[in-house]
């Protein structure tokens, strides 16, 4: 396995675990709450962010020596906004159905603090290949949490996964519902996402004590 050096592979693996943008750095919480009522929306958002962050980090890294530091935030913002518009237009032309499912989420990507954070903290100071890996890694770390939250919220809140009923029919009382199980309506409202994030953080810190901050 010499595809990636140890240092490079850490760029991808760290954000997935001990340096996760959502559970450790507490970035990108807003979209994690807003769009995770369904697994499908979570997954699509994750994929879009992976795309925008991978390309965005490359562009910023390429431009890192020519961007004037006074207007670097604006320059970063333009890069994200441009990429998001490109994604939006291309989807509208060639994957119209998908673009409708995504509609607002694509716009939401611009406001995702993880993206600006990585541009600022990593891509401005590192080479193209490493920036690309860092972008993909962080987007994956974000996406994994999104998918986990989406999975539990959709399963417990609606009894479905990807819109397909997996626990039986709540109205006709089949499957689990026949023995008195009920969907938990609380799970589909945004605060439930915070609770799921909290549980993930709890599990993560129980497994790795080094993550616990000094009181």
């Amino acid at each position, binding site marked *: 396995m010499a595809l990636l050096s140890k240092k490079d592979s850490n760029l991808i693996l760290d954000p997935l675990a001990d340096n996760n943008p959502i559970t450790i750095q507490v970035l990108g919480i807003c979209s994690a709450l807003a769009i995770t009522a369904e697994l499908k929306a979570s997954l699509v958002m994750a994929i879009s962010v992976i795309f925008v962050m991978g390309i965005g980090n490359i562009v910023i890294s390429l431009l890192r020596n020519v961007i004037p530091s006074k207007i670097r935030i604006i320059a970063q913002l333009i890069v994200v906004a441009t990429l998001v518009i490109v994604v939006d237009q291309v989807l*509208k032309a060639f994957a119209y159905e998908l673009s409708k499912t995504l509609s607002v989420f694509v716009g939401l990507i611009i406001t995702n603090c993880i993206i600006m954070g990585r541009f600022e903290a990593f891509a401005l100071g590192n080479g193209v290949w490493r920036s690309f890996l860092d972008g993909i890694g962080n987007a994956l770390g974000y996406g994994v949490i999104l998918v986990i939250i989406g999975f539990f919220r959709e399963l417990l*809140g609606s009894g479905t996964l990807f819109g397909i009923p997996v626990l039986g029919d709540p109205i006709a009382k089949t499957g689990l519902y026949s023995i008195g199980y009920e969907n938990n309506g609380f799970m589909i409202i945004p605060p439930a996402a915070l609770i799921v994030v909290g549980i993930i953080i709890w599990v993560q810190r129980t497994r790795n004590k080094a993550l616990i901050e000094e009181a």
Partner: protein
Amino acid sequence: MALNTEKNSYTVLFAVIMVAVVGSLLAFLASSLSGKIKENERFEKQQNILYAMGINENTQDSGVNFIPTNVVEDRFLEEVKGQYVWVNGEIEEDDQAFLIDIKKEFAALKAGDDARLPIFMGEKDGEELYVLPMYGKGLWDAIWGFMSVDKDMVVQGVYFDHKGETAGLGANIKLRFFMDDFIGESLMEGQSYSGIAVSKTNNDPLNEDKQDNEVDAIAGATITGNGVSAMIKETLKLYRPYLETIRNN
């Protein structure tokens, strides 16, 4: 090559070049894709209208399955017996009526100006079917749809869509479990155009009572549901003069 990126002149130059590059890139993209996007939008409207007429590829337990885009245009021309606009109390034929921007027309009408309200005619089991477009507000943004009724104002099919309702909650107005409930409900309550209310308290989750002018609401989507109720009422109000002529025929 050491570049002094701190100079003001450089900063301005950089900003100008970046804006020019990005601007022309996006302009090029938008103009080269706009034909394709317009075509997609046209097919979508045709699919939606056909869906509201009950013409789709749904099976018993499937989700929403439209007529596929490659055949939708032919199917639309075949199934829609006439496209009309209602202007100033007169009905006129217009074979591009499905492209009319409802939002503009509704706004004009409410401001007291002349408006062109599109109406599509179809047929179901030998009975005439009238498809009305709708437009309203959900929680975050616009909601819209089409509804087909027979001459007694009994709903034969609906299609709802939205711009940005919450996924898993308000966004579910475009799912079958919600839309199918409207079929068979009457828009009339005696002689008044009551519409159909999306109700949280109707005690009829299976929607067996088709005379109650109510369908069951979606949990967690109160405002979107109220938006749907209001949208139906609004459409009935605006189309009322036309609907009177159907009922009196």
